[in-house]
């Protein structure tokens, strides 16, 4: 099971400081909900897509679009029903399919959703998981909070593997061989498999707690601290670039 989202690639975005990158992502995600033109939002999506394309290649860059395609289809199907009191824009015979207002809002929703998807994805693709964790720490995530997340990442592969082993062991004892029976059996079989996997995972808790205590985490006091994020050039410059991009976008495209 892959528990990292980092995609190795090229481009300036990989050298941009993770803290300013997160701030820029958040600010731009908020800005697309302010009164800005859909053209500006599409431009933002296009730039994000082009950065992803240059950094990671066509196949990778198109993958977020594939994941949100079903939602875009739902928007196309259902948004026209919300805005019906405006001049018709698309008709089939005497039936009004979509009004001008519906098309405007549909356009805005799709642009906004693609922009948010690409900006959030670009951030997690171009920042290593450890840098994301250090960024959250820098923004004030408590020591124990960061510890929980790092330990969870350490346990994900272990629990995924043990679940698979337990599931395989349980599947050996299936009786039915016909497809319908197998599917029904699989649904009923899930309960003992889940219980076994949970007991297996829960049994690791006392050992993990003891290990933490041996490492000095006994009274809530920390003996270790997280390393500081390094950045190319002064951090101030990275934040300045981030502010310039966010402000320019709003000034250029606000309605």
């Amino acid at each position, binding site marked *: 099971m892959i528990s990292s989202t980092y995609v190795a690639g090229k481009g300036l975005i990989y050298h941009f400081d993770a803290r300013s990158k997160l701030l820029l992502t958040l600010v731009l995600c908020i800005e697309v909900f302010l009164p800005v033109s859909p053209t500006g939002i599409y431009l933002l999506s296009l730039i994000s897509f082009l950065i992803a394309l240059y950094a990671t290649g066509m196949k990778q860059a198109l993958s977020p679009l594939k994941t949100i395609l079903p939602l875009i289809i739902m*928007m196309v199907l259902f948004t026209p029903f919300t805005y019906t009191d405006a001049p018709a824009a698309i008709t089939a015979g005497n039936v009004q399919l979509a009004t001008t207002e519906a098309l405007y809002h549909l356009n805005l929703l799709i642009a906004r959703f693609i922009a948010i998807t690409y900006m959030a994805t670009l951030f997690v693709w171009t920042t290593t998981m450890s840098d994301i964790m250090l960024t959250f720490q820098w923004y004030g995530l408590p020591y124990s909070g960061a510890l929980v997340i790092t330990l969870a990442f350490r346990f994900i592969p272990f629990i995924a593997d043990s679940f*698979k082993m337990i599931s395989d062991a349980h599947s050996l004892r299936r009786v039915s061989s016909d497809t319908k029976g197998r599917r029904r059996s699989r649904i009923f079989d899930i309960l003992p498999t889940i219980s076994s996997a949970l007991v297996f995972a829960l049994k690791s808790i006392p050992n993990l707690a003891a290990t933490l205590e041996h490492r000095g985490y006994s009274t809530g006091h920390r003996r270790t601290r997280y390393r500081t994020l390094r950045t190319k050039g002064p951090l101030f410059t990275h934040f300045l670039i981030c502010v310039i991009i966010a402000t320019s976008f709003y000034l250029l495209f606000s309605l």
Partner: protein
Amino acid sequence: MNESRPAMKIALVSVLTAVTVVFTLLVRVPTPIKGYISLCDVVIVFSAYLFGPWTALLSGGLGTGIADIIGGYAQWAPLSFVIHALQGLLIALIAHRKTEEDGTADTASLGAMIIGGIIGMIVMAGGYYVAGGILYGFQAALVEIPLNLMQSGVGVVLGIAVAKSVSKAYPPVRNLYW
């Protein structure tokens, strides 16, 4: 839980967060309409019943948020964090269990578990409806309500069954409530 062992709390929340991620991404049950539902709600409900509001809030929120990031839906991560954290918190608060002086907790009644589970279902389906409505329109978000209700309903049913079977199979879980 023994309050003088904060490492136990960290270990409990970490392992349950990892379990939530695995159950969200790997464990899926096929539905009659050729789709799949994830079992993240089973772990959230199970955590709420056996380990209390704080564990359910933290492991439910963090687990589903991390699963969204790993699964390629990073834009949903903050929303999933809030919705599932609230879901876990409310279920645990409603199905509240009394803690004995020795730190063990008695079992919540089935009625409280069911009411807590139903409130959790409403919070989950309602939360995603509001979030989806803001992101891609309220008409389109309506379509997801039945699917979310089905997923969280399966979560409640399996969560109750798993909580009962795990507390029988591994009695030390009774000491982990906080």
